[in-house]
Each structure stands twice: as C-alpha cells, then as structure tokens.
C-alpha cells in the first residue's frame, strides 16, 4: 500500500509541476493496462509520461482485458489457465481469480458491471458470469472460435463474433438465446456498436473488410473495403474498431498492413491511413478520446495517436506480444 501511495504522490507532484497546477484537481494520472500474451504479464503505463509503473504477473496467456465500469478493477482473460485475473487498480495487484471454463480469449462487461461475458475460444461458448460471486449464470453455444464481444448500452443484447464460423451472433440477455446470426466476411474479430447504437461494425480479418450491420434487422447495410497503395491486399487484416465520441470518425486497426484506417463513419470513406507499429490489433482511447492507443503485437509497443490531428505522436515499449489494452482514468 505504502509504495503505491508514494507512487501516486510522485505522479501527482509531477503532474502538478508540469501542468502548473491546472490539472491538480485530477489527482490520479490515467493508467494504461496492456496484456502481454507470451510474457504472462500486464504492463501498466502512466497515461501522461508513458513510463512503465508496474509489470503485473498474471496467469498464462493473458489476452482480453477490460476495466470495470467503476474503474476499480481491471479484468484479464488468461487463456491457458481458464480464468480471469482481477487486478485492483489501486494496489496494481491480482486480488482475485474467477473460473471461466476453458480458453477464455476475451471478455466484456454488462453496463452496470454486474455480469462478465467471456468468449471461450476452444469451446464455441460464451460464458456469462456473475461478477460479484464468480458463479456462472449460463453458457451460450455460439460459432467456432468466438472472440470479440459487444454489449448494447442498456445491456439487452450481447453480440459475439466467431472467427471460424464467420458470424456475428446476437444473444438476448433475458432468454440467453441466440436470436440472430449474421454471416460476415471471413474471420471476424471485433464487434463494436456506434455511439448512437444504430449500427454494429464487425471487422473481418481474413476477408479484409468491415461489415456495417443494422442491429434491428440483422442485415448488412454496407461493407467497407481498404486499398492502400503499395500494400498487398492479403496483408490488410482489419481487427480493432473504435469510434470518436461524436461518432463521426471510426478507427480500424489493419493488422499486418501496419496501419490504422481513419473512416468517415457516415460516408464510410477511408480518410486516412496512419502508419503505426507492426500488426496492430486492439486499440483504446484516453478518457476524453483525445488520444488513441494502438497495441502493436509484433513490435512489442503501443503507438499513441493524437486524435484531433490524426498524427502518431510516439511509441512506447511494453512486454512481448502485447494483445489487449484497458484505460483507467
């Protein structure tokens, strides 16, 4: 505890010194939590200095990571250990482990934070867990290699995409039944609702596209393609999807194309490709979405993009084979 307090104190002093007290009310610096798939660790970075402030040992093969809505905890899926590590964001220690069933790849939480949704990659299941008790509420059979999860704002629907079945499955959270399936291009990785909840974007890594799905009719309204001069089509592998708060811009991480596409979310036109590190997959914004943090799996670093100018600002090293990222304000 005492060392954590000291660390907070130091961060506070630094922030106060740098910002001449303007942000002094913001006592705690933002922190970035990055899972390192082959190190079995989570790297914690200071959100202003981007210095490593902790390296937290986890169980085996940490990949999916989310912060609880109250930001008290960060949850990490340990694929080869069949559990979730619960990290206390104050002490930066693993305080609890939750059994998930085999091979949890990634996870999402209900809006209130009472439920955890886990995609069990090897078992074609979504496991629903009561976060307070760690008890399983149910398991929902879905397609093969389920990965990205998206939860509607009111929590009525959970969407999971299955990589090998190439579908987005819509799960009703009252009946726990799959109520609709949408076939998308090959190997979907991530599903993300637009901020107004009107559309669901699903990235297809091998198909090289993003499908824009109408979540009411469960039909594909638009397919976004990418053309990058000098980059072969087979290297364009869309994975991570994020929207600005106003929903005007979408960012799509393009994997082996080593770029993040900036898309006008109304016209679906790609406005820009931002060069980042190698094999970017997952991304997360800073609390006010002024910065976008892009995790580069093969260069073991995180590229920081300035959102207003759409420029990459710098890259900071993390652990080996970094996978997911959560941001705690």
């Amino acid at each position: 505890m005492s060392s954590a307090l000291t660390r907070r104190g130091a961060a506070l002093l630094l922030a106060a010194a740098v910002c001449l007290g303007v942000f002094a009310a913001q006592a705690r610096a933002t922190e970035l939590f990055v899972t390192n798939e082959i190190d079995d660790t989570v790297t914690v970075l200071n959100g202003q200095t981007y210095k490593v402030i902790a390296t937290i040992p986890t169980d085996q093969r940490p990949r999916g990571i989310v912060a609880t809505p109250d930001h008290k905890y960060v949850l990490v899926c340990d694929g080869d250990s069949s559990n979730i590590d619960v990290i206390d964001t104050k002490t930066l220690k693993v305080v609890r482990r939750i059994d998930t069933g085999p091979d949890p790849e990634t996870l999402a939480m209900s809006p209130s934070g009472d439920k955890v949704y886990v995609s069990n990659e090897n078992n074609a299941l979504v496991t629903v867990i009561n976060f307070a008790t760690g008890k399983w509420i149910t398991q929902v059979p879905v397609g093969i290699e389920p990965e990205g999860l998206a939860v509607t704002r009111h929590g009525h629907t959970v969407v999971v995409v299955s990589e090998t079945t190439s579908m987005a499955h819509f799960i009703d959270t009252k009946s726990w039944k799959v109520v609709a399936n949408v076939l998308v291009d090959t190997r979907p990785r991530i599903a993300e609702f637009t901020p107004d909840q009107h559309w669901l974007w699903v990235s297809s890594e091998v198909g090289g596209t993003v499908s824009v799905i109408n979540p009411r009719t469960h039909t594909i309204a638009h397919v976004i393609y990418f053309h990058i001069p000098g980059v072969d089509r087979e290297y364009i592998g869309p994975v991570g999807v994020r929207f600005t708060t106003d929903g005007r811009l979408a960012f799509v991480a393009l994997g082996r194309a080593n770029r993040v596409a900036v898309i006008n979310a109304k016209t679906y036109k790609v406005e820009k490709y931002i060069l980042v590190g190698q094999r970017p997959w997952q991304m997360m914004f800073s609390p006010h979405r002024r910065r976008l943090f892009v995790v580069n799996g093969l260069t073991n670093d995180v590229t920081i993009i300035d959102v207003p100018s759409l420029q990459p600002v710098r890259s900071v090293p993390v652990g080996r084979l970094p996978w997911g990222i959560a941001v705690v304000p």
Partner: protein
Amino acid sequence: MLRAARTFALLTLVVLASVSASPSYAAPTAAGRTGLKTFRIIYFRKKYHFNPEVLPSLLESHPANLGVAGAEEATYELNTAGKFIGWHFKLDVITVPDGGNLIAAAQKLLAHGPRIIIADLKANDLLALSDLPAAQHAVILDMRTIDDSLRQQDCRANTFHLLPNQAMRTDALAQYLVLKRWTHWFIIQGPTPQDAVYAADIRRSAKRYGAHIAAEKVYNYNPGSRRSDTGYQQIQTQMPLATEVDADYDVIFVADETDLFGDYLPYNTFAARPVVGTQGLVASAWSPAYQEYAALQMQQRFDLFAHRRMTELDYGGWLAVRIVGNAVMRAGITTPIPMRKYLRSKDFLVQGYKGQGLNFRRWDQQLRQPVLLTTPLMTVSISPQHGFLHPGYTTDTLGFDKPETKCHLH
C-alpha cells in the same frame, strides 16, 4: 458492394430452386424435423498399403484416419455454423481397398452421388478419376498430391489442388536460404522418379533466386533392416560417404520424397552443414508445431477431436471440407459447374490459418498459400520471405507462375 448481403439472396434462390430440382444428386435434401437442408460431402479415398516398418523414426506413426480426421473435424465445424443458417453437412467417406477397382467405385459414385468430390488419392489414381467421362463436369478437390505434373502438363479443368506442389516447396526453401545468404547448395538425390522431379525443382529455384548448385549426387540408398538395434552404426558410416564431395557449399539440399534416407543426414554428413529439402528443414502446408495466425486454436481443436496431432494430410482434408462449406453457405452453391466457376472467381476465399485469405490460381487451379518452413519441433519461418515481390499475389512467387505454366485452363 454488398457482398455478404448478396450471398444471402443467392442462398434463398438456391433453396427455392432445390424444391423442383432433380433429387438424383446435389440437391440439398430437407433433414426432416430439424428443418435443416442436408448436403453430402464425398470423401473418396484409396486405402494404400503402408508398412509402418519403413518409418525411419520410432516417433513417427501412420494413423488409419490420416486425412479423414481433418475432414471430419471440418464437417463438425461446418455444422456448428450450419445450424444457425439452416444447413447440415454429412461427410460420406468412400474407401476403395488397395488393389480394389477404383474406376468402378468412381463410376458408381459419379452416377449417383453429388459430383463434388474430395479426393484422397495418389497422382495416378487422381488422374484416372479426373479423366473419367462421367467426371467431366465434376469438381474434384485434390487434398493429397504434391506432384508438379498435375499442376503442369497433367492439369485438368475439373481438378483443384490444395497442398503446395513440389516446386512451391523448393521455392519456399530457396527464398529463405537466399535471405540467409546460404546460396551454395549441394543436392543429394534419391532413386525415385519423384526425387528427380524434386531435384529439378531445386535447380529451377536456384536459377530463379540466384543460388548456385555447388555439387550434385544421386544416392541409391538400400535401407536393409531399418530398425535393427545396430542401425545407427551402419548409418554413421554410410552417410558421411554419401555426402563426401569435393566442393564448398552452404547447405545440403536433399531430394528424398519417400523418406528413404534423408532423416539420417543431419549430424551424419561429411561436412558440418545444415540439411534442407524433403527432410531436415522442410517446406509444407501444415505442421503440428505451427501455431501462428491462430493455428494454435486449430491444433487444440484437432487434438480434442482426434486425440492426436494434426498432419499436413489432415490439413488437406480439413481445407477441402471448408472449401465446400464456403461454396454452399456463402455462395449458395450446391452443384459442380457453378462451384467450379465460384472457386475460380474473385469472390472465393478460404481461411487456412495463414494470416491471409487463400484462393486459386486460375491458370492451374493450385491454391495460393504461404508455405511453412519447419523442423519436427519448430516453425522456423514462413515463405514468401520479406522482399520477394510480385505484381499480383506475393504467394505467386512460390511455384509455377502464369508466364511459366504448362497448364492453360480457361
């Protein structure tokens, strides 16, 4: 633009059409109370005699369900997807015994069954099947052969090849060797005609990528009693003799397609040089040690299903079934002529855990794919190597490119 949406429209059309279609073959049949339409996937194989005694290492095995297990696993996967959109796939494995009448079995199959056939056959049997008049309008997915000839002078319009052929393999190795600047090669060639083809491919790759053949030797190895407990002593004297040449070279490139002696070479060679080719560092479509691009999930899934490791032949069977599944579920295609068109089109793509979608070369119907370079325990690299460029697909730097093809399918 609305590719996926259009797929659904097609699917609906086909479902409607099937009601009035002839029930004799290919028409999906309603599977009673489940409400799913059933599609039969034909897996046609010959059970070739195999003597496990010829395997040089005790660590090797020859499971009876080689290849089939991959197809079974893929069928299970298709059904997981199919149940959500109204399809059920049934894998029908038809086995002709070694010495049995392949032609009669094939004719019976072509007369009654769906003319979309996964062929687990060696080159001469595959060609016999492809050349049957009744197979003229069939689609044959060759999941087994690696013979160059079937992609060149013996290519057939009804046949699609899934595994990388020999020339793709030597090119995959050659790119890596050139990248390493190990450009002087000593070829040691076994006695079979296939070894001669592979050795010719090595020479072709050398010319293509600027490497040099420093020495060549044909070695007619007679294994004698392969698994006697004094085996290594014989090997220890024979292999240095076989590899003694008056030349300076970087690697030994071995052409031994039937595994007669290649596995004896590492650490037994006259000079201290690494061994690549059909043994040592090998090029292949799949290895049980491969885990990149989510292949780890495939390996784990296969192991849970078959209780053994996934081989290249299992991968061939798996890929073949997934290709059929894509045609049926994505494009709504259940008959051979439209399927042939679809497999040759830009709309077709199959996921094979290689980090990119795979499709067919139109000129010889060979599946484009990155090729793994592996040792028995590790994936060393994946070709094409960085810096080897191509105006179309970088994977077309491996094997017979359009300008050099001897196959002209339109």
